[in-house]
């Protein structure tokens, strides 16, 4: 009986640091935030210690906050859908290519991740702005004007560009994990490549696709720089609102409550989405 015990001990030694990091870096700020969200706000005192549900009640009683949440969910869901639409074929092709340029393609996909999302957004701003590249091109070739700056479309496109590399690398590894012989087997049995994908690869990759979609959705729900810079002051999403309450209004209790509401909503929606995936396909 000594052996299993010693391996358990060894395992806990290795798990120890990770557990500590999680506890210190994740759990304790959350606990602190949870506590703050029950405090009362005062402009000069910042926070007054209390146990009140007023901050949560404020969110649920004002239509404004509900509308911001709806916009946030809408953007995150639309971006995730578009990410899947664009990312799936790309990731699949990357996973199945035997080209020697494969690693170069992969690098190209993740290259945008090397550039901070704010810098990238500034690039989009130049592209979208009035008399920017897109506007000039449209004016030259179609004699019309494209004014995407400070529109919801700009936010969706910008967020898409941030999320897509994450989506593609996640999906690529999902497809990479599925034996190519399964597709061959399906095709050998008479399935066209499309049907082979739909009947074999799709169900097998569904749990992985679910994870990729959840990743994109979470990134979308928490997007900050893109909505601020591309959406403009009139476009409201949760993360900028939360930061505004925290930073501009110094209302820590309310922004803590907003953070929890955002987190809970994200969690709820992803759990709901996950439950749609049939049981037998789940990882």
């Amino acid at each position, binding site marked *: 009986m000594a052996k299993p015990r010693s391996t358990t001990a060894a395992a806990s030694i290795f798990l120890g640091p990770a557990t500590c990091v999680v506890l210190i870096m994740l759990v304790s700020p959350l606990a*602190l935030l949870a506590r703050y969200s029950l405090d009362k706000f005062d*402009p*000069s*005192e*910042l*926070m*007054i*210690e209390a*146990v009140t549900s007023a901050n949560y009640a404020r969110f649920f009683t*004002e239509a*404004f906050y509900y*509308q*911001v949440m709806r916009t946030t969910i809408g953007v995150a869901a639309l971006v995730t859908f578009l990410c899947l639409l664009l990312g799936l074929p790309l990731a699949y092709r990357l996973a199945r290519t035997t080209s020697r340029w494969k690693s170069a393609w992969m690098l190209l996909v993740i290259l945008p991740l090397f550039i901070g999302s704010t810098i990238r957004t500034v690039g989009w701003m130049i592209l979208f*702005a*009035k*008399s920017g590249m897109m506007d000039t091109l449209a004016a030259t070739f179609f004699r019309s004007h494209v004014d995407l700056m*400070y529109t919801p479309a700009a936010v969706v496109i910008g967020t898409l560009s941030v999320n897509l590399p994450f989506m593609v690398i996640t999906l690529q590894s999902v497809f990479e994990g599925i034996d190519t012989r399964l597709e061959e087997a399906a095709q050998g049995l008479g399935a066209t490549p499309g049907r082979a994908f739909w009947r074999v690869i799709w169900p097998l990759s569904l749990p992985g696709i679910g994870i990729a979609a959840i990743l994109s959705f979470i990134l979308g729900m928490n997007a900050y720089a893109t909505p*601020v*810079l591309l959406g*403009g*002051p*009139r476009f*409201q999403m949760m993360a900028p*609102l939360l930061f*505004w309450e925290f*930073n*501009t*209004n*110094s*209302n820590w209790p309310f922004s803590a409550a907003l953070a929890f509401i955002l987190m809970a909503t994200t969690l709820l929606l992803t759990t709901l989405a996950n439950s749609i995936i049939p049981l037998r396909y789940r990882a």
Partner: protein
Amino acid sequence: MRDNILSPRLKRRTVLAGAGLLAAPSLIRPAMADEQIILGTWGGDYQRLQMENIEMPLVRKLGIETVPDIGDELPRAAKIRASRRLPRGQMDVACVQAVQAYALAEEGLLEELTPDKVPNLAHVQAGLSTPTFVPHIWSPQIISYNPERVKEPPTSFGDLLDAKYNGKVGFPDPNFFYVMMAAGLFGSGSASDFDKAKEIALKLNSNGLRLYPSTDAGGPPFKTGELDVGVMWLARIAMWQNAGIPVAAAFPKEGCILYVSGMCVPKNAPNKAAAFKYLNAMLDPSAQLGFAQNMGYLPTVTNAPLTGKVAQQLALPSPAPKLVVPDFAVTSKALPDIADWWKKSIQHT
């Protein structure tokens, strides 16, 4: 009661522990000067110019070195409030706008500043300073317009409501509070009349008001033709003109709200003596002219006359426009409510 177990003060300590971590670079930085002060300031050009015009040529000679603590004004004010009961505070000099300085002073958090402590205070223009606040730069808020497209320069905030500017009027969103004061000034002659201001702001909003996420983003639209008119600081107009943007300033007849930014010393600043020396250097004519030339803000001292192109760009018209210093007592209290109202009623439509 909970308060007995975990007192508010203890709680502030936890906040401060975090703030202390942010200031940690000062602890590991090798001592290069006899004294160090912590300067709470904005980043970017402002901090760079402080380095170039105040610290390097003037303050270093006094054996003082600054450690910048960079951030936005509101977190900085929050930090001062949070550490008010500590014997040693987190900042020696805090850069804030006049409105904020007023609010902090109301709470009794700021050191009183006199010419004994800061000799150059004697040269400061009347009306800009308060007993606890030294103005550093100022600029009147004007009506900005594109002189190529707007043949008849606007004369009042009210012109912005004209239907001919529908969809062609806008300004950077962070300036909303000053715009609200200007709206009040136009509507009822009082910068503190926020009820009137709200009414006018709603009208402005329905005239296709455009909002930009940052001050910098407010300039290029004049070049692209997106904006014909707007509201801005005179200082920015000079900066944008230098960048080749076709924009000019019109002084509204009802008066210009003044943007005044300066510095204050928290009561519990660890090194007050050095902080005073820093403030004094900041008011030095050479430092004041440096800021005017590079940022387009007007000097707050009377012994630093502008010359050359800057003088022309920043010149106030004759007869002198009406300059309005907001009633900080009212405005500082109204800020949180106006901010919330702005978000929900103007931004969100």
